[in-house]
């Protein structure tokens, strides 16, 4: 009897594991943004660590859990000043269908006190089917 119980439990665990898609990887991220406080363009590059779990909840909705860390450094084209940015986008959410996006705003910190820092918003666009999260960046001077 206990042998059958073990087999049933193992099958259930295997089913649960198959139902959850896990992503745990770092990917390079680079681009160009504009420091809206002084108008100069900033080339930046860095990494985003995607740590995401996707599964179908008991209520039939998509259950998406993410803890994505991003860090990058940039250099102003006109001033040559270096900038650093880092942040974390965490979400534990449920929704019926894709696509969905989550935004996290962080400060692009100037390494020269004479050059103003600015804010950038990292938008994580989740399109489903596993590793499909894409990232875009927008900046503001507030």
């Amino acid at each position, binding site marked *: 009897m206990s042998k059958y119980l073990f087999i049933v439990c193992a099958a259930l665990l295997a089913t649960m594991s198959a139902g959850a898609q896990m992503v745990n990887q770092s990917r390079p991220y680079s681009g160009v943004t504009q420091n809206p406080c002084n108008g100069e363009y900033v080339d930046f590059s860095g990494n985003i660590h995607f740590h995401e779990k996707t599964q179908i909840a008991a209520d039939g909705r998509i259950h998406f*859990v993410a803890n994505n860390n991003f860090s990058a450094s940039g250099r102003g084209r006109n001033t040559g000043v270096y900038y650093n940015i880092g942040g974390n986008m965490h979400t534990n959410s449920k929704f019926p*269908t894709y696509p969905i996006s989550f935004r996290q705003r962080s400060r692009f910190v100037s390494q020269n006190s004479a050059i103003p820092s600015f804010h950038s918003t990292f938008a994580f666009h989740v399109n489903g089917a596993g590793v499909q999260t894409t990232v875009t960046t927008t900046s503001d001077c507030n």
Partner: protein
Amino acid sequence: MKLRLSLLCVVLGLFALPTFAQRYYLEDTIQPAETGWAESASYNQGQYLDNPCTSWYDAIWVDYSAYVESAQKEAGVDRYTLFESTTMGGTYKAAGAQEADIGYAGAFSIRNYYKVNTSDNFHVVTVVSLDPASRYTSVTVETACGDGSPDSKE
């Protein structure tokens, strides 16, 4: 005399017309046609909670409250911000606040986990559901033996 008064009225009317038009224009400008909406609500739900990390059932009374601000950032754009603050008092205590900025064309829920003052992994979960079409926001309370991260069981 009557003719002069009539001419004076016409001249005054011509000067007054731009003033009225400008006023109308200003009133039209301040209409919130290009902005979204913002609402807030408080929830107070005293209730019994069980620590799911223990094998026994321990119904403990807690004073639970949550404050939620929901907003649409821009009219016609499916982008919504949620600020939520939870406070739980009693034998089981927890507190914290979280923000979310979500782009979605439909109803969704966010689950915010807060550590309870126990030595295990007991968390209270404030679930905020938003239906942008009706602007209806609801709060439900759940418990979990996990922190809601991708590696967590719950």
